[in-house]
């Protein structure tokens, strides 16, 4: 390896870390973890993490796209719960394929409702999705009378426990496919670019003839559909439809997206950063578990870390914009 290509690699790395500081955080985190417990960077341990990473990661991709337009979707957890419940109910009556299709359509409709309230009535996204978070979860709880619905169905099982070509776990496949599609969409497809353009300046986008309302509704539909899909995967994993299962993802997904550098005001960030964010979050959780930290304190620490990193990002922004 000659000097020239070495310099090139160094420059590209520097640019990469400058653009995505979250990966630096990841490296530091792993370093700290190694100090406490060398197991944490072992292959087996990382494999454990990868086992759990698919659903949060896929959800974060959807949330990233929503946040890039300057919005937010707090209702996705409830959509996961509702989707899981509905698919379990429909399964014996409609069979696996039809049930999945119905649930995905339900996701699209839910997303369209979100988008409609946000873009047509111009109500703040967080209050709209907050309200629907209560509504969809409430519906799920009412349908199931708060008890999870057990199911035993090999086709459903396969959704989470199946393998592609016999070796690759399907959840990884979903994750990789959605990640790749997400990258292509956001960076190469014209509608994905519209997402960034709207997030930067809605007015300028509108003047240029971009149909802002339609795209906004679209991203909420996309996120809800992705959430519904994840609901099916989660139901498959646990073999039951649990009306409150989605709640646990709320924090991790939003945290991962923010940590990854996607601004809540939109227009900047992306799913590569979100990938880093998810890894940091899950390694953090893993580290805390390995060190026997109570799960409650885990939440506390997660909350503090998110807060501190957002504060850090904000200081960076304040510092650079005062010029």
């Amino acid at each position, binding site marked *: 390896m000659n000097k020239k290509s070495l310099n090139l690699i160094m420059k590209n790395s520097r640019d990469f870390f400058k653009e995505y500081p979250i990966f630096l955080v990841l490296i530091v985190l792993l370093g700290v973890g190694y100090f406490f417990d060398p197991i944490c960077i072992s292959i087996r341990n990382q494999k454990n993490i990868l086992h759990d990473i698919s659903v949060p990661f896929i959800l974060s991709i959807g949330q990233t796209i929503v946040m890039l337009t300057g919005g937010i979707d707090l209702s996705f957890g409830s959509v996961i719960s509702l989707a899981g419940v509905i698919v379990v109910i429909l399964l014996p009556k409609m069979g696996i394929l039809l049930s999945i299709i119905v649930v995905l359509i339900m996701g699209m409709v839910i997303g369209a409702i979100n988008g409609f309230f946000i873009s047509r009535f111009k109500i703040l996204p967080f209050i709209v999705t907050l309200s629907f978070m209560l509504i969809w979860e409430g519906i799920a709880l009412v349908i199931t009378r708060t008890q999870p619905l057990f199911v035993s169905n090999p086709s459903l099982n396969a959704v989470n426990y199946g393998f592609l070509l016999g070796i690759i776990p399907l959840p990884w496949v979903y994750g990789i496919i959605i990640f790749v599609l997400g990258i292509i969409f956001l960076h190469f497809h*014209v509608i994905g670019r519209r997402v960034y353009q709207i997030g*930067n300046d809605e007015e300028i986008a509108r*003047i*240029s003839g971009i149909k802002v309302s339609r795209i906004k509704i679209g991203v909420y539909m996309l996120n809800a559909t992705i959430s519904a899909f994840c609901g099916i995967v989660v139901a498959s994993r646990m073999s039951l439809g649990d009306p409150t299962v989605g709640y646990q993802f709320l924090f991790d997904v939003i945290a991962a997206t923010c940590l990854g550098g996607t601004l809540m005001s939109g227009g900047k960030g992306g799913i590569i950063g979100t990938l880093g964010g998810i890894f940091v979050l899950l390694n953090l959780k893993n580290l805390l578990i390995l060190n026997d930290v109570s799960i409650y304190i885990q939440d506390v620490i997660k909350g503090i870390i998110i807060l501190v990193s957002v504060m850090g990002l904000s200081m960076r922004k304040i510092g650079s914009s005062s010029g």
Partner: protein
Amino acid sequence: MLDVKQENNYLEMQSIVKRYVTTVVDHVDFSVHEGEIHCLVGENGAGKSTLIKILSGIVQADEGKIFIEGKYVKIDSPNTAHRLGISVISQELSLLNELTIGENVFLGVEPKNSIGLVNWREVHRETEKQIYQEFEVKLDSRKVVKNLSIANKQLVMITGALRWGSKILILDEPTARLSKEEIKRLFDIIKNFRKEGRAIIYISHHLEEVEEIGDRVTILRDGRRVITENLKNLTLTDISNYMIGKTKGTKLSSDKIISRNRTGKKKLLEVRGILNEKIKNVDFDVFEGEILAIAGVTGSGRSEIARAICGIDHRDKGEIKLMGKKLKIRKPVDAIKNGLIYVPEDRKTQGVFLKIPVFMNVLLNEKTLEDLSTLSFYFMHKFKSFASKFVKLLNIMTPSLDTPCSNLSGGNQQKVLLGKWLAMNPAVIILDEPTRGIDVGVKLEFYEIINKLAKKQNKGIILISSELPEIMKLADRILILKEGKFVEASFKEDLTQDELFNLIISKR
């Protein structure tokens, strides 16, 4: 300058009328040919910016018709204007900051394949090619717009307009923050556009620029079109005369000349060495009982000086003395507590609380609230009676003291703002364009009040204004801010308004 042929008008605006409180645009005809650089000129408030807003779809005219290529068009939104091929390059650099040059240039017209994937290579290649060919500038199209210089950002905006295919280009004060070479380059670009047959509207208060680049000029005054003429046939003096109209002979008021004798008058405010990123080392004094006018072209930094003195903007260096005492001003409340008040230009965003009742608005500042309260609480009747004094003094027209300020007219809102600052009993008041957008009757009331404040109450008034008749009427002394430094204008005893005008706009 080309000899402009009598071609058909590409753009024709007929008898445009726009009314707010006053008639801002009064039956104006305005047309531009293909391949013409048509300059639009007029003092502040003459109606230029409203006319342009109508053309770019931000505002709708009350009366009048617009035709493009002979066809009647209705420009009901900025979107429509854009579709019709009208692009505005203005001071607010409207670019998508976090995105690349290429993406900005191709916004809305990205080359894509059948499934919608953008051909980025083509985008960046074409962008760089176009920028190089048109402007002879090498820019990396993959760079993010945020970090470009202002001149380059302008180039990106222009390229975007060209790429879109805009035939009508409106350039609104484009040279404001450009260097000499950048201005020259811009002019070459504009001349190229003319060759390409585009219709260019060039707005500027720099009359030498207008003279250099324009084919025809339309001069507006008080909302009316005064004249449209080929620039070959006009001199600079002619233009400025048309801009200020019959009052070209007005001299300073005679009673002002008497009061300009300052011997025996105390120095109220002394400002030395104010320095921050926008102001370069400014010194001046204000005397007791005097109205000091600060004139200058838009963007010369007058408001910035006021904001720096009053602690609103950060200040790197500088000393401020009030009545001999050195003041430590770090934030707005410091200035207010010391009796140094700034009445902002933009009353909506900076001064008036629209949802809060009139009487409360008048009292809403740290100092007055403190003075009138008892142990941090207040009595409604005490508040209202205090406020009503100022409402009466300033003749504020309001249905009641409890009416929210949003229900008041612009002029009355401005009065409320003034009342608020007066309620603080300041020693020095800085008024920034106090009568902008206000009709004549209320304007005269304001002049009376300002005069009374200075002459009867011995306050020091700094009047930042772009309306020359206003300055001529009120000022004891006039300072002109040119490129960050002050030049005294009132050294001449019988200074006339057009002399003042020429002093302001001349480059030296």
